[in-house]
C-alpha cells in the first residue's frame, strides 16, 4: 500500500534479518523491545480480562458471577499480572529498551546479551506464572501478606512467589543495563545537562529497580522458605512479626509505584515539549525532581501500614516523609503546564494522552495527600478510595504515558503512522472510560466499601454500576489502539524520519532505525529540546 518508492530497499532493524531465530537470539535492543512489547501486551490482556470479570462480579451486591475463592484469585492475579508482568516492564522494557540507546546516540545497550537474558527471565517467570494460573492460581492478594500466605492459603503461593522473584531479576538486569548505558555510552557532547528528560527518568527508575527489587526478592524467598520448609521468620506463633514482612515488602513495593510512574513522566516531558515546540520549562528542576522522587520514594513505605500496628511515632515520621515526596511530583506538574506557555500547541494523539496523564496524575497525586494524612488514612486505607487512588496513578498515570509514548514513537518503531483520527477517539475513550470507572470508587471508598470484597452491602451498588459501565468503555479504549497499531504496520502511511519535527537523537536516524542505530555516531552540540533551532512542521504529516 505504501506509495513511497524509496522505503522498501532501505535496510533497517526489522528487515535486516528474517526468521524466528533472528528474533529469539537477537541482541538488538530494538528487537528485544518488540519481544517485550508482544509479551507484556499478552499479559496486559489477561490482566485486563480479569479486571473485567472483577467489575462484572461487582455489578451486583451478591456474589453471583463467580465463587468467592475464584474472585479472590481474580483480584490477586489481576494485581500481580498488571504490576509485575505489565506495568513494571511496560515503559522501561519496551520504550526504554528501544529508545535509551537511540536517545543517547549509542549503538546498543551496554550489555546486549544481558538484555536478551532479561527478556528470557521475563518469559520464564511469565511461563511459571501462567502455569500457576492454569493449575489453580493464587489467592493471597498481590501483597502476599503473612501469615495468610505462609500458613493459611492453600493455593499456589510458592509458584507465584518464585515467578515474581524471577521477573524481579529481569527488572534488575534492565535497570543495570540502563544505568551503565547512560553512564558509559553517551555520544560525544551529550553531557548530563543535555540529556532528554526521558533518559533522566529512566535513570531514576533504574536506581529504584536496582536498590529496591532485591529486597522484594529476598522477602519472597523468605516467604517461600517459610511456607515450604517451615523456617519461622514472620511466623507469629514463634514470636515472629508479620509486620516485618510488610516493612520489607513495602520497602520495594512503594518505590515500585515510582518504577511505574517515573518513566511515564519522562514520556510526558518529551511529548509536551514536542507539541508545544518549546524547551521544557525548568529543565534542571524536572530532571532533579525525578531523582528526588526516586530517593525520597524509598523513605515513605510504611504509609501503607498506618493501621497495621506500627508505632505512633514512626507513623508520624512516615507521614511527614510522604508529604516530602509530593513536592517533586508537584514541581513536575507545574513545569509541564508552564511549558505550554507561549508555545505552539498542537493536539495530536500523543499530546492528548500526555495532557490526560497530567490531569489524571494530578488527581491521583492530590488524593495521595488524603492518604498520607494519618487521620484520614485510618478511614480510607484498604477501601476503594485506595483502589481508586492507585489506579489513577498506575492506570491514569503510567498507562496513559505508555500509550502516549507508543503513539509518539510508533513511527520510529514501525516506520508507519497510526491513524490519527482513530487515535484521538481512542485517547478520549480511554480518558472518559477511565474516569467513569475509577472516580466513583473514591466516593465508594469514603463511604466505607472495603477493597477485595466479593459481595457488598446493597447501598454501594449504584456507584459500582457506574464503575462497571466505565470499565467496558475503558476496555474498548484499550482494544482500539491494539487493532489500529496492527493495521498500521501494513497499511499505515509510511513515516518520515522525523514526523513530529521533534528534537532528540532518536529522530535524527531513519524510521525505523538501522540495526546499529546510527550510520555515524552523532556528536551533540545542542541542548535538549532545542526547538528554537528546529523548523516547525508546516503541516501535520498524517495520512497518505
Amino acid at each position: 500500500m505504501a506509495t513511497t518508492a524509496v522505503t522498501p530497499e532501505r535496510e533497517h532493524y526489522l528487515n535486516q534479518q528474517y526468521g524466528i531465530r533472528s528474533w529469539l537470539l537477537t541482541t538488538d535492543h530494538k528487537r528485544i523491545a518488540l519481544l517485550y512489547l508482544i509479551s507484556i501486551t499478552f499479559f496486559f490482556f489477561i490482566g485486563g480480562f480479569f479486571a473485567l470479570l472483577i467489575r462484572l462480579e461487582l455489578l451486583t451486591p451478591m456474589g453471583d458471577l463467580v465463587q468467592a475463592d475464584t474472585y479472590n484469585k481474580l483480584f490477586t492475579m489481576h494485581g500481580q499480572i498488571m504490576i509485575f508482568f505489565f506495568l513494571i516492564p511496560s515503559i522501561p522494557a519496551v520504550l526504554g529498551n528501544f529508545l535509551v540507546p537511540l536517545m543517547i546516540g549509542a549503538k546498543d545497550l551496554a550489555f546486549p546479551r544481558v538484555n536478551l537474558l532479561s527478556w528470557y527471565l521475563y518469559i520464564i517467570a511469565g511461563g511459571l506464572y501462567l502455569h500457576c494460573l492454569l493449575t489453580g492460581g493464587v489467592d493471597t492478594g498481590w501483597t502476599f501478606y503473612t501469615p495468610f500466605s505462609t500458613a493459611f492459603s492453600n493455593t499456589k503461593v510458592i509458584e507465584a512467589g518464585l515467578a515474581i522473584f524471577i521477573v524481579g531479576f529481569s527488572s534488575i538486569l534492565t535497570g543495570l543495563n540502563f544505568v551503565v548505558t547512560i553512564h558509559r555510552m553517551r555520544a560525544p557532547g551529550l553531557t548530563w545537562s543535555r540529556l532528554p528528560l526521558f533518559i533522566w527518568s529512566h535513570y531514576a527508575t533504574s536506581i529504584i529497580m536496582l536498590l529496591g527489587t532485591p529486597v522484594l526478592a529476598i522477602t519472597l524467598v523468605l516467604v517461600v522458605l517459610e511456607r515450604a520448609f517451615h523456617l519461622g521468620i514472620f511466623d507469629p506463633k514463634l514470636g515472629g512479626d508479620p509486620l516485618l514482612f510488610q516493612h520489607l515488602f513495602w520497602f520495594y513495593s512503594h518505590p515500585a509505584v515510582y518504577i511505574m510512574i517515573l518513566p511515564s513522566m519522562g514520556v510526558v516531558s518529551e511529548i509536551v515539549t514536542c507539541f508545544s515546540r518549546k524547551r521544557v520549562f525548568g529543565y534542571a528542576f524536572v530532571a532533579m525532581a525525578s531523582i528526588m522522587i526516586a530517593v525520597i520514594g524509598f523513605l515513605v513505605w510504611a504509609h501503607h501500614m498506618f493501621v497495621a500496628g506500627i508505632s505512633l511515632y514512626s507513623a508520624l515520621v512516615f507521614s511527614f516523609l510522604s508529604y516530602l515526596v509530593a513536592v517533586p511530583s508537584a514541581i513536575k506538574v507545574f513545569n509541564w503546564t508552564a511549558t505550554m506557555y507561549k508555545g505552539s500547541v498542537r493536539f495530536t494523539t500523543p499530546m492528548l494522552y500526555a495532557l490526560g496523564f497530567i490531569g489524571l496524575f494530578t488527581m491521583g497525586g492530590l488524593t495521595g495527600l488524603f492518604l498520607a494524612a494519618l487521620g484520614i488514612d485510618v478511614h480510607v486505607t484498604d477501601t476503594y478510595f485506595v483502589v481508586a487512588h492507585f489506579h489513577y496513578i498506575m492506570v491514569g498515570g503510567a498507562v496513559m504515558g505508555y500509550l502516549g509514548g507508543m503513539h509518539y514513537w510508533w513511527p520510529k518503531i514501525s516506520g508507519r503512522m497510526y491513524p490519527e483520527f482513530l487515535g484521538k477517539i481512542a485517547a478520549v475513550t480511554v480518558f472518559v472510560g477511565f474516569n467513569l470507572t475509577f472516580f466513583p470508587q473514591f466516593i465508594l471508598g469514603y463511604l466505607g466499601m472495603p477493597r477485595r470484597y466479593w459481595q457488598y452491602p446493597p447501598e454501594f451498588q449504584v456507584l459500582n454500576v457506574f464503575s462497571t459501565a466505565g470499565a467496558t468503555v475503558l476496555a474498548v479504549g484499550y482494544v482500539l489502539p491494539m487493532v489500529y497499531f496492527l493495521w498500521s504496520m501494513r497499511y499505515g502511511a509510511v513515516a518520515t524520519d522525523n514526523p513530529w519535527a521533534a528534537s532528540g537523537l532518536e529522530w535524527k536516524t531513519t524510521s525505523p532505525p538501522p540495526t546499529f542505530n546510527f550510520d555515524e555516531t552523532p556528536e551533540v552540540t545542542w541542548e535538549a529540546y532545542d526547538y528554537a533551532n528546529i523548523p516547525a512542521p508546516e503541516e501535520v504529516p498524517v495520512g497518505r
Partner: protein
Amino acid sequence: MADSTVGVESHDPALRHHFATREQQREASSLGMWLFLGTEIMFFGGMFCAYLIYRYWYYNEFAAGSRSISIKWGTINTIVLICSSLTVALSVRAAQMGKRKLVLLLLSLTMLFGVAFLGIKGIEWYEKFQEHHVPGQSFDASDIVREYPQIHINQQHEQIYFSLYFAMTGLHALHMIIGLGIFLYLTFHTWKGTYTPEYYTPLEIGGLYWHFVDIVWIYLYPLLYLIDRKPLG
C-alpha cells in the same frame, strides 16, 4: 556479528561491536558488576534487617543459639574464605602479568577453597540436623535450654534464630555455588587462553563477585557465631 553499517573500525576480537574503545567496554563491565553487587547488598540487606530486629528483641536466644553452633567450623570457614580471596586477588594479578599457568593454579586453588567451605558448611548443617536444630516440626532446642539455665530461653524464639541462621548461611552458600560455576567458566577460558594482559575483564569482574561473597561471610561470621561467647556467670 552480522552488521552492515558499522564495526569496520576495529578488528579487535575482544571488543564488542557496540563499544567504541576497549576502555569504554571495560569500564562498562566493571560498573555493571559493581551495580550488581550493590543489588546484592540490598538482597542480603533484607535478611540483615530481619536479623537486626529479632536480635534486638530476642537477644538471649540469639546469644544461646550462637553459642550452640560450632565456632571451630565457623572460624575455619572464615579462614578458608579469606585464603580464597587472596588466591583470587593473586590470580587477577597473574593475569595482568600474563602468567597463564599461575592463573590456572590460583583459580584451581580458589575453587578448592570454595569446595572446602561448602563441605564444612555441610558438616555444620548435618550437625544441626542431628541436634534437631533445624526449624520445623521436629525442632527441639531443649538441649540449649538445659545448657544455659541462667538465661531463660524461649524455644520458639530460638527457632527464629535458627531460621535466620539457615536462611542466611543457605543463601550465602548458594552464592558460593554460583561463584564456583563462574570460576569453572573462568578456568576454562584461561585454559583456552582467552585472557591476555590486555583483556582479562571477565576474570576481574568474576573476582569482584567472589570477594563480595567473602565480605558477606565476613559479616555473617561475627553476627551468627560470635554474638556472645563470654563465660556465663
